[in-house]
């Protein structure tokens, strides 16, 4: 039995191709069912950046052919037109690819969090429809565990890579939970809206929008669930809040003296000022004041870019973790494959021995019981000795993937395949 990944993603196919393969869940299951009996188990993942089949099959070429036929019929395309966008991975390469996808190493935005949920949903959908069995259940369980390990042990997803997320993360590094802190937005421009939204979504205890034009403040406050006010009211509110987000045009500047007076009334509470206005709204000297943390748009962008670099650096570590996990998965598969193969081989020989012995004894019905037993012992010893060397050698093969292949070959050579499948299904 082979495990394959067959699909396309943002690196192999443009969006106009990818969007054609986006399927609804009902349709997905229909497609997977259509691939039976070639593919005994299957999961289909469809996101905006990838379309992938995860299948277990004995006949790779035929399964791929069937996949193309099914997709072509759905999308009314010629198989030849779509083949060039697809890639195929088998066994250990396929495991590694799945692990990379689940860990967000294969995503367009490295380390993004959504992909793991999407892979889980795809798997759950197939599982509920009875499209997964021992192999895919085990493989996906390990993929999820590997992804969790990568996220917790590397910097792949730890550090935010967009300016708004960086601002929220910084706020959390100053105040821990934002639930007891209030935010004041000075200037209701488009620039600040996204960052304000991120802060509000983090559960701040109060959100105020101050703007020169009150109507604009009202619109934004209504949109984000805040309280609108005039600029003058906003300036007064500064003593009360812990996070100030500024994006005011027209020469508005918060001077060091203003903030110095302000922090005296705050009894040492920290103040986080995010100045995303261009030109800047806050005098850089303000950042030198005790317990004041001032960040402008360049500071935030620099951190976001540095974090992107850190994520890139984490790929190598993450991949080494995944390789270990793939090895463990291969070991698990071996435990499924190797031991039963040896057992089946022994059973096969034993059946041959029994049959031959019965035929022989039929030719000599008057043979004394003692001699019958001696012949029986002789044939059993011969069988055991013949099987001893291959069994020992099979266990000696160090490379786990090779052992897996070895076991597969053994099943092929001795025609153990059908028997294995029958047992596996029972």
């Amino acid at each position, binding site marked *: 039995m082979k495990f394959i990944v067959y699909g396309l993603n943002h690196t192999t196919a443009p969006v106009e191709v990818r969007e054609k393969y986006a399927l609804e869940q009902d349709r997905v299951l229909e497609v997977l069912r259509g691939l039976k009996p070639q593919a005994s188990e299957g999961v289909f993942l469809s996101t905006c950046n990838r379309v992938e089949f995860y299948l277990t099959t004995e006949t790779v070429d035929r399964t791929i052919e069937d996949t193309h036929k099914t997709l072509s019929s759905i999308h009314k395309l010629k198989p030849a037109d779509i083949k060039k966008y697809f890639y195929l991975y088998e066994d250990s390469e396929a495991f590694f690819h799945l692990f990379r996808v689940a860990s967000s190493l294969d995503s367009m935005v490295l380390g993004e969090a959504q992909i793991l949920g999407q892979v889980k949903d795809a798997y759950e959908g197939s599982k509920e429809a009875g499209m997964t069995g021992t192999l895919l259940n085990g493989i996906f369980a390990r993929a999820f565990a590997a992804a969790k*390990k990568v996220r*917790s*042990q590397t*910097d792949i997803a*730890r*550090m935010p890579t967009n300016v708004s997320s*960086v601002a929220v*993360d*910084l706020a*959390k*590094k*100053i*105040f*821990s939970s934002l639930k007891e802190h209030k935010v004041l937005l000075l200037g209701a421009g488009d620039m600040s809206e996204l960052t304000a939204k991120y802060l509000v979504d983090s559960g701040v205890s109060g959100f105020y929008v101050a703007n020169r034009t009150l109507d604009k403040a009202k619109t934004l406050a209504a949109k984000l669930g805040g309280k609108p006010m005039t600029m003058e009211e906003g300036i007064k509110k500064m003593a009360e809040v812990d996070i100030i987000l500024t994006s005011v045009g027209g020469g508005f500047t918060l001077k060091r003296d203003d903030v110095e007076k302000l922090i*005296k009334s*705050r*009894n*040492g*509470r*920290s103040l986080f000022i995010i100045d995303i206005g261009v030109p800047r709204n806050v005098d850089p000297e303000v*950042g030198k004041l*005790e*317990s004041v*943390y001032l*960040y402008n748009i360049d*500071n935030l962008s*620099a*951190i976001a870019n*540095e*974090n992107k670099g*850190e994520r890139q650096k984490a790929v190598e570590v993450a991949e080494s973790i995944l390789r270990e996990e793939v090895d463990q998965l291969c070991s698990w598969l071996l435990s499924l494959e190797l031991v039963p193969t040896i057992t089946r081989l022994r059973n096969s020989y034993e059946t041959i021995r029994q049959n031959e012995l019965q035929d022989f004894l039929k030719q000599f019905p008057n043979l004394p019981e003692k001699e019958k037993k001696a012949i029986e012992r002789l044939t059993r010893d011969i069988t055991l000795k013949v099987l001893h060397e291959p069994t020992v050698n099979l266990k000696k093969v160090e490379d786990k993937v090779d052992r897996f292949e070895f076991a597969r070959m053994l099943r092929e050579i001795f025609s153990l395949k059908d028997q294995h499948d029958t047992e596996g299904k029972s």
Partner: protein
Amino acid sequence: MINIFYAVTTFFYAVGSWFSFRYYKTFEPFNEKKAFQWLLMGFLAQAITLADQWVSTGFAPLDRIDGILMILSFSLAGTLIFGRAKASVPILVSLFLPFIFLLSAIGFATDINSVPFMDAHLMTPVMVAHIFMTFFGFSNFTVGFGVGVAFWIQEGQLKQHQMKSWSYRLPALEILDGLTVFHVGVGFLFWGLGLVLGTVQAYQVWNQLPLFDPKIFGSLLVLIIYALFFILRWALGMRGKKTMTLVMIGYFLALFTFLGVRLFLTTQHTF
């Protein structure tokens, strides 16, 4: 003869330290959780070790170096467990547990038949309480110092707009600040009580108050510095590096008073 309880304690701390190092390598919460569990078990085993020695000898094992190291590791472990009730800072247990193990291991390896440096008749309940309180106070200052250093680093990173990957693993300034105040506050209380009890003991033994003994003088100075820390925070609303500097100064002075005085100055204290 090997003290089996002491051996078990050291073993527990060793396993906890192993998980601490694993935590540094992986930053997986599982490892920190395990480290804390082993710390807890080590603490309980150490409590039994102490009780056993106390019962078998009739007085707390404070007259020998192994006993002193045991009390020090015991109070540090207790401080970490106690501090966790205030705030869970995963990196803290993993930072201090190897030191606790080291103290316990050195104590365990020290010859328990070594000559006592204190007369048994001095081991009155007041003396025992004085030592325990001072050690617990010092342990809290130590953890408070560790948290203060973390605050110092984190604050520096935030001020300079440089968030490195390890900065994301450090807790928020608010948590670090609160925890520093907590440990310094608890330390202040116990250090102060230890000083009062030590004074009572000194008066009982010598019928006078050796105020100019460097240990007592240093201890008073430590209390003054930490009192200043609280006054600046609460009365003047000062925060950040300036007040953390006082935590550092207070701790180095406490460290000198605790360990350095015997090495460099003359004191009536036996350790």
